[in-house]
C-alpha cells in the first residue's frame, strides 16, 4: 500500500507538470490577474502533492487535481470580492482584448459553476462525467448548467455539442 501511495504521488506530479497551463488559464479566467492565477496553481500543486495519500484511486488523479485547483480559484475570487466591497470597481479596458465582447461578457456573468462547465467542456474538452467529478455533482446537473450557460451565450445547441468526446 505504501508502494501504491508512492505511485499515486508520482502520477500527480506528472499530471501537474503536463497541465499547469490548463490550471493557470482556468484560474486566470476567474481572477483576471496573473499573480493570483500563479498563486492558485502553486497552492493547488502544493496541496495536491502533500495530500496525495488521500486520493485512493490514481485513475481519478486528473479530475481530483482540477477539483483542488477550482476550489483554490473559488477561494481566491471570494476573497477578491470581499476586499473589493465598498471600493469602486473599475471594469474598463479589459473588454477591448476580446474579439467577441458579448460572448465574453455572458461567460463572466454566469455563476462560477456554470462558467466552469462551459470552459471545461468547450475549451478543455473534458467529458461531462469528468466535469461532474470535478464539481462533485451528478451528470444531469452538469448538463443543465451547460444548457443554461449556452443559452446565456445565445448559442444554439446541437447534438454534436453534447457528445462525450
Amino acid at each position, binding site marked *: 500500500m505504501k508502494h501504491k501511495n508512492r505511485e499515486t504521488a508520482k502520477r500527480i506530479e506528472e499530471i501537474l*507538470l503536463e497541465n499547469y497551463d490548463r490550471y493557470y488559464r482556468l484560474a486566470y479566467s476567474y481572477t483576471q490577474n496573473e499573480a493570483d492565477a500563479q498563486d492558485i496553481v502553486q497552492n493547488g500543486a502544493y496541496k495536491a*502533492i*502533500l495530500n496525495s495519500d488521500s486520493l485512493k484511486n490514481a485513475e481519478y488523479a486528473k479530475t481530483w487535481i482540477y477539483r483542488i485547483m477550482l476550489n483554490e480559484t473559488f477561494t481566491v475570487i471570494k476573497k477578491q470580492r470581499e476586499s473589493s466591497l465598498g471600493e469602486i470597481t473599475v471594469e474598463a479596458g479589459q473588454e477591448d482584448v476580446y474579439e*467577441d465582447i458579448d460572448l465574453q461578457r455572458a461567460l463572466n456573468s454566469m455563476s462560477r459553476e456554470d462558467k466552469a462547465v462551459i470552459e471545461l467542456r468547450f475549451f478543455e474538452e473534458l467529458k461531462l462525467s469528468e466535469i461532474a467529478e470535478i464539481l462533485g455533482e451528478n451528470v444531469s446537473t452538469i448538463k443543465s448548467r451547460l444548457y443554461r450557460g449556452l443559452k446565456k451565450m445565445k*448559442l444554439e445547441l446541437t447534438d454534436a455539442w453534447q457528445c462525450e468526446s
Partner: protein
Amino acid sequence: MDKTNSEKLNALRKEYENMQMNSEQIESLKSVIEDAKQEKGRERHKVMMRRCSTAAAVAAAFLVVLNTSPVVANAMENIPVLGSVARILTFRTYVQENDDLSISVDIPGVEMISEDTNGLTDAVNQEIYELCEQYSREAIARAEEYKKAFLETGGTQEEWEAHNIAIKVDYAILSQTDDYLSFTVTGSENWNSGCNETRYYNLDLREEKLVTLEDLLGEDYVNIVNADIQTQMKQRTATGEVFFDPGEGGFTGIDDAVKFYINQAGNPVIVFDKYEVAPGSAGMVEFEIDR
C-alpha cells in the same frame, strides 16, 4: 449549429488558450513541487517514527513483564513464532504458517551472538538475542495488521502470499570497552521501508544492565545534553553544516526515545536519524557529549 456560433466560440477559446505561464512562473511552480515532495517525505517519516516508537514503548513494557513473570514467560513458549529463547542455536528462519500469515522471519541465534561477543557472559548474549526477538515480534504484529488491511481492501490470500513478506533482524557491535558494550539492532521489513529501524543499546558489562544517559551524565542529563547539542550545532553551522530550525521540525530537545552509543573514550554519542534534525543529505547526525 450555425457557422457563426462555432466561429464565435472558437475565437473565445483562442483568447482563453492565449494565457500561458511564462518561464519564470514555471520555474517557480517546479520549485514549489519539489518543496511539497520534501515536506511530504518528512511528514511521512515523522508518522513512521511515531508509530515505531510507540511500538517500542509497548514492547519495552512487554519485556519487563516477560522478565518478571514466569507465567507470562511460559505462556510465550507456546506461541510458535516466539518459541523458546534458550533453544535457538543458530541463525535461523522461522516460517510462520499458522493462520496463513505466510511471512518469514530471520533473526540471529544466541550461539552466533556468543561467538561474536567472545568472552562475554551468557546473560549479555541472551540480552542481545532478546532485543532482536523483541524487534521481530513487533514487525510480525505490523505485518499482521498489514495483512488484515490488505484482505479487507479486496486483496486475496494468493496475492498476499505472492508478496513474500520477509522480516530480517540483525545486530552490530559498535564498541566494546571493559565497562560497556554498545550495539545496534536493525530490522528490515521488505514491505515497509518506513519502519526499517536501527535501535541503539548500551550494556553495563559489570552490572549486566542497560545503561541510560542518566547513568552516564547524572540527574541533570537532559539539560546537559540539550545545551551541549545546541552549542555544537552553532559551531557546526559556522563551518557550513545545515540543521533544521526548531520551527521547521528541527532539534528542540531530547526525549526518552533519544538514541546513543558509548564510544571507545567512554563518552555518550547522541545519534539522530536522517531528516530528524537536518536535511536528508546530511544522513545520520552524531553529537559526542564529553563527560
